[in-house]
């Protein structure tokens, strides 16, 4: 799916979710999102990096430089406490929205 079709706020949630278990670098996050959505979302660097930097400035993510599995220097992102809270809020909000949309579509 194209980045422009991503619902506003969805990418943030995906990133938060993908980082819930462990810290990852940019490509790792993109691949992880692809994997957990079974390929529905393919995040391009043009939207991934602005989102990462914005979220870092918001204080949800913290970044450190580290070594990748094949010995390349890469920037690793992990969730902060604020990021975890944000993931919870986003998850609840998303649950409400999807429920509401499902109901709306079932109604006749």
């Amino acid at each position, binding site marked *: 799916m194209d980045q422009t079709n991503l619902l506003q706020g969805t990418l943030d949630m995906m990133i938060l979710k993908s980082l819930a278990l462990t810290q990852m*670098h*940019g490509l790792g996050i993109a691949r992880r999102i692809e994997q957990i959505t079974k390929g529905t979302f393919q995040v391009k660097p*043009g939207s991934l*990096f*602005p989102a990462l930097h914005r979220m870092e400035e918001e*204080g949800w993510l913290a970044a450190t430089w580290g070594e*990748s599995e*094949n010995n*390349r220097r890469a920037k690793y992102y992990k969730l902060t406490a604020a990021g975890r809270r944000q993931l919870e809020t986003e998850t609840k909000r998303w649950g409400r929205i999807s429920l509401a949309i499902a109901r709306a579509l079932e109604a006749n």
Partner: protein
Amino acid sequence: MSLRTRLASLLRNLFRRQHADQELDEEVRAYAALLADEKSKAGMSVEQARRSARIELGGVEQVKEQVREARAGHLLESFWRDLRIAIRGLRKKPGFTLVVVLSLALGIGANAAIFSLIDAMVFRPMPVPHAAAVIAIDTAASKLTRYGGSSYLDYVDFCARAKSFKSLTISQQMSVGMNATTAAPSSKPENIAALLVSANFFSALEVQPPIGRTFIPEEDQVPEKYPVAVISYSLWNRVFAKDPDVPGKLIKLNGHSFTIVGVAPKAFTGIDLFYRPDIFVPTMMSAQVMSDGADTLKQRSYRAFDIRGRLNPSVSVAQAQAEMNVIMSDLEKEHPESNKDNVAIVRTEMGRRMELSDVSAPTILTALVMLVLLMACANVASLLMARATSRLKETSTQLALGATRACLVRQFLTESAVLAALGGTAGILLADAAIKGFGAFVPNNGSAEGPAFRLDLRTLACVAIISMISVLLFGLAPAFMAVKDAWSAVMTTRSSASSSRNFSSIARRVLIGGQIALSVVLLIASGLFLKSFTHSQNIDLGFNPNHILLVTINPQLRGYSNDQATRFHEQLRQRVSGLPQVKSATVAARVPFLSGASWDLTIDGYTAPDGEKFLDISNNQVDPQYFSIMQIPILYGREFTANDTQKSPGVAVVNETLAKRYLTGEGDLSKALGRIIRLRDNAPIQIVGVAKDSSYGSMFDPPPPVFYLPYQQQGGPNATLVVRTESEPAIVIPAFRAEMSTLDAEIAPISVMKMTDLVSQRGLFLPRIVTMLGGAFGFVAMSLAAIGLYGVVSFMVSRRTQEIGIRMTLGAQRSEVLRMVLTNGLSLAAAGLVVGVAVALLATPLLRSILVGVSPWDPATFAAVAVVLIIATAVASWIPASRATHVDPMVALRHE
């Protein structure tokens, strides 16, 4: 996100931009490398994998730019970048920048100067807390007027009866002689501005003293019991060198000792824009500081006080007015002799000023400076448009490389903002210089009894607003047009001149035409001012101001009594009369243009149509020879002689206007001789002479009725020696001063001046300032229009260089090319001229109130302006036109 992390990222992005950028670069490249690794693991060759990763990434720089836009401080950062680009661009074109900044500086500076002038005369708020809530009460002697002082006894009744007011306070202006040598030994006796005030004056106005205290109620209950005074901050600084122990010190006012109890705050300069008292004294001490001070508290008809106060919460001005109407009609019943037909007018302080100030001249000047600013903005707009057109290629390239339109408009606007900031700053400097220059012509500017004409924070705020408005006025339209043109240039791949009749070129022609029209209006206005000014200098004053020296002295300053003062003046007159170079000398209580007063008069055998008992008439008290020294002809009867003394019967001289209006009508003026006038109801005074009319205080209004009494019979302590000299009056000043110090070494004159200077400073102040400013504006306007026209024609020439080259190659004559270009400029000038004259015909009648002896439709002025304008525009078009004829055809053909 928390404010702290936001600030941290903002600071990091702004100040460690390079570092952040580098890190970002590294991060994106790492991503690409990881992606390539992934692909080569999946089986691609290294080269293929790298290539494919690049494609998937979509460009390192683009990704970085997207990240930058998401970052905090992005707007600020791009503003800095625009600013740097703008400044670099302006530095590359110093001529253009100079013309634009100069145009704006003239427009903005002129506005700042005029705003300061009007502010000093009307709008500056009273320097007290909650100034907008201060109200004023005037007492008018009839229902027809809306202005007048109040009496002390009426004030006491207002305070006792009115429920609408939280507080009412009273004050009266006067000049006192101060001797502070006991408190500050180095000081000299001097004349200062004083204010007689009720005890609650400071508390009612919510003014707190920084040193000592203000008055307490007990100090203002019993006449002459508590000689206390509050001094102004400026006096404290000037005379007492900010001595913190000044409370308790003694100073002498008119020879009486007063104890200083406190210092008023620095900001508090009194309640009147034109009067900044240096000392405040309780009303009960009036007998000590005024010659008729005891009367001021006892007579209900002595209406010389100003009432200010504050309303109770939830009471409106209209409600207070209604209550005052009832109180005034009660007082009229109780005191018919003094309060008949008197009305009280309740207004806010600002409302009162707006109603009573004569703002016609300032308003006209404001309209003129606004026009100048508008012209400056039009000029800058057209210059910016020309510049934008010449940068079409650059702008198109930027668009083609992916700059957004919003981004380009922002860049253009930033450039305008920089120009406006420069123009505003230069404008402030210009205004400051102008204010200092004009300030010298404002009577009493900055002294205790005159307006305080200065550039203050309010003016600066005004300039800032004007500058911002002008950015929008001149910057926005060219910015949009430039980007629009560039956009179409991208589309049609044309890089230089698109069509010569495109929108922005028409807009420019309209702008220049409008500017020429405006400058015609301004030039006509200033031409009329100039003519009116020349005319006003030749007005017959009714006296001869040449070779007259005026020395004003108030011996009361040294504690002299009224009689001692009169004797002092007489002795000095005799001594001065004997000096070489002096023809004769006389004493006068008032001098035309310097001072004036009106007294209540009754004329036996005359009843006013409105039943008023007293006539309020201008007067003067003069010694023998006053009329012959001033060269005011006595038409009938005689002037005063040495025989008219305190012991002889009262005599008077009246002017023609008084005689005609109240005594003889249009009949024989000599019939006025022998008639009786009285000061109020006092002893009879016989008219012994009728003098020709002469100017009293204004040379533009017809002379008012005036009566003259012998100084020996009715003179006060403050008087002027009027000395007629053989030649230049200034040369007798040293001898005069020597004579004065032989009589009293410590006395100092209040003023020493030549009558001619007095007339030109006071009498011609308004026409002079209007003429100077009007002339300056007219000239500026014409220069702006000429610069604009020059710009438009030379721009047209540069765009048609190729065409001109072809024409000349094909055999066109230089004169034909010249004509072609000149026609283009002059047709614009002609159109502007026609519109300008039409507007001027409609607008100049508005100037009638400040024009003397000139018709607002003066044909000579209109014609002269037309000629001047045609010459100016011809020169402005001829320069680029002649340049066009010297174009080398080969260069022109290659011109792209």
